[in-house]
């Protein structure tokens, strides 16, 4: 059975209202642009989105927020998005903020088949409320559970027909972790090649974690904070 699908619409076609999605990316860097656009076209609602950030008003997950498709966001940082803030303050949107390393490690745990991990992040703060706390070598750690997501949606620079993925620079971020963590993982790649064309020594995500793959089109790769060198 081939993992290769024609496009984003086909890749996300089975995603239903109420699904729990993981979306790769840090800010707008490495986000699955094609799949987000397809989710907006499909109009699925009541989604729970696990993603480090929530995009900006008119790009990334911000596009899904505009269409009120997201019921709950699980993120570490959600600034720079006025519509997000409005929905949060009006109570339309539920938000769970968790430390970034905890977010990453809860993905990792899911992909490694571990039900939970202990982390010191948030000990002694409101993040620890209601959580099991255990002391190791005199230091407090919180028990944090592996995520359970119906779908993980990631972007890679290259992928092959077996689903093997290679990421580029800091666009890697959460992508390989989420790729491992979804019950079904959808990968959009900037370049799709035949099996054998990628060096097996250089694969970041082995194809076993990837269920559907397609070559994306028309990447905008918007820059959130364009910063250049000042010449004095």
């Amino acid at each position, binding site marked *: 059975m081939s993992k290769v699908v024609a496009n984003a619409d086909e890749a996300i076609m089975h995603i239903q209202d109420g699904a729990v999605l993981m979306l790769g990316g840090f800010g707008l860097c*490495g986000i699955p642009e094609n799949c987000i656009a397809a989710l907006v076209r499909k109009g699925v609602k009541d989604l729970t989105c696990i993603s480090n950030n929530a995009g900006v008003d008119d790009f990334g997950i911000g596009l899904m927020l505009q269409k009120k498709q997201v019921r709950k966001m699980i993120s570490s940082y*959600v600034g720079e998005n006025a519509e997000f803030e409005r929905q*949060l303050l009006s109570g339309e949107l539920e938000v769970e903020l968790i430390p970034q*390393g905890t977010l*990453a490690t809860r993905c990792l745990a899911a992909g490694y088949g571990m039900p939970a991990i202990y982390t010191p992040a948030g000990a002694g703060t409101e993040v620890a409320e209601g959580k099991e706390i255990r002391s190791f070598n005199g230091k407090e750690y919180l028990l944090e559970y592996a995520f359970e997501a119906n779908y993980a949606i990631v972007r890679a620079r290259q992928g092959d027909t077996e689903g093997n993925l290679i990421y*580029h*620079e800091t*666009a890697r971020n959460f992508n390989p972790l989420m790729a491992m963590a979804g019950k079904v993982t959808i990968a959009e790649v900037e370049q799709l090649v035949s099996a054998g064309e990628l060096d097996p020594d250089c694969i970041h995500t082995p194809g076993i974690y990837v269920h559907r793959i397609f070559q994306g089109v028309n990447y905008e790769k918007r*820059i959130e*904070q364009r910063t250049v060198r000042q010449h004095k």
Partner: protein
Amino acid sequence: MALTKEQIAQRIAKELKDGFYVNLGIGIPTLVANYIPHGIKVVLQSENGLLGIGPFPEEGKEDPDLINAGKQTITTIPGSAFFDSAMSFGMIRAGKVDLTVLGAMEVSQSGDIANWKIPGKMVKGMGGAMDLVASAKNIIVAMMHTNPKGESKLLPHCTLPLTGVRCVKKVVTDLAVLDVTETGFKLLERAPGVSVEEIKSKTEGKLIVEGEVAEITF
């Protein structure tokens, strides 16, 4: 004269040592990179998955796949490495990062820090700050001594939701350099021309002054 933000960064840069791996937070901490002393090698860690942050790119050479944790376009230095977010926080948690510099809204005399949330006003999230403060061996806070209302940010106890407890080792403000000790904030240095009395009046937390307090030099 109180220090400028650039001068706060410049003073913190004196704490860097050859071979340090350093994580710099957003704001004043980012400026520390401009003042790394000559003759020492420091590798900057970006928690979105890079060791070896270089300068900002030349105009026209911006790469959307290459950003820092503040989402600014950056470059890499020779010998840099990319990794995923779990490994990034893995190296932080495992204590491989020698120094973390971050901003704060409040610091308590026992080293608690609050910098992620103002209930009812600002809910942007903690990003990687809670992971960093929970694990870093050495944490320096860079901030103004008082808030825009003129109230002390160095307190007996934080009033805002905490980011971490008993973790800050040193605070560098526009007025002073202070160590967080078992018994309170120990005044180490004062900004040029700023009196010990002024620092006392603007420090709500317990301030320890022993003998002559030297002026900050760069």
